[in-house]
């Protein structure tokens, strides 16, 4: 008995390298966008330190009560000295 054999067997599976041409237009476009995106970003997040020192004024000793008490007086002072305010 002869072993049975297909007349036109499929070729054995093989791995082909990915190519833009084989991905179709949509796939190619996606790849191009991804590459452009990578080019646009320099690859890392840059954090620049401010050139001036960060000054946080802690006026915690000044209470809202005092400010409210002085508000009307300060308003008059500003109006009386309009040249420097």
């Amino acid at each position: 008995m002869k072993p049975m054999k297909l007349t036109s067997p499929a070729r054995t599976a093989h791995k082909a390298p990915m190519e833009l041409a084989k991905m179709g237009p949509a796939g190619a476009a996606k790849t191009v966008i991804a590459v452009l995106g990578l080019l646009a970003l320099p690859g890392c997040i840059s954090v620049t330190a401010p050139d001036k020192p960060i000054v946080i004024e802690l006026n915690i000793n000044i209470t809202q009560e005092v400010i409210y008490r002085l508000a009307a007086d300060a308003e008059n002072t500003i109006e009386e000295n309009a040249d420097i305010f």
Partner: protein
Amino acid sequence: MNRMKRTRLAIAGTLGAVTLAGIAVPALAQRDPAYDAARQAGQVAEKMDGYLMIVGSSSPSLEALVKDINIKRRAVYAEKAQAANATLQEYAFTAGCLNIARTKPGEKYEAPDGSINTRTSAPPERDPRCP
């Protein structure tokens, strides 16, 4: 008749008030034009502590102007603080709240986070303790 008299009196009173107001306004000193221009150009900012600061590029004339105003402000704050039985810092900070509230759109001010903001038509960002 009576009515006419009253109307005349009212008119006379109004005119008198207008005349008085007209006299009173020039008595208040106005800002130096250079100072006003610097404010409008955003070259100076109102700080939270009640004083002015220079924003961006400085010049000797601008530095002199800001220094002069800050010295005068400090003198006024100190005098008024003493009269109000408050500290200089308390009085100056209160004035700072008001100075920032009084900025006009386009002028600059210091926000509670320390950044310099440009005033828009919206209310400025101020310290939560401000009145």
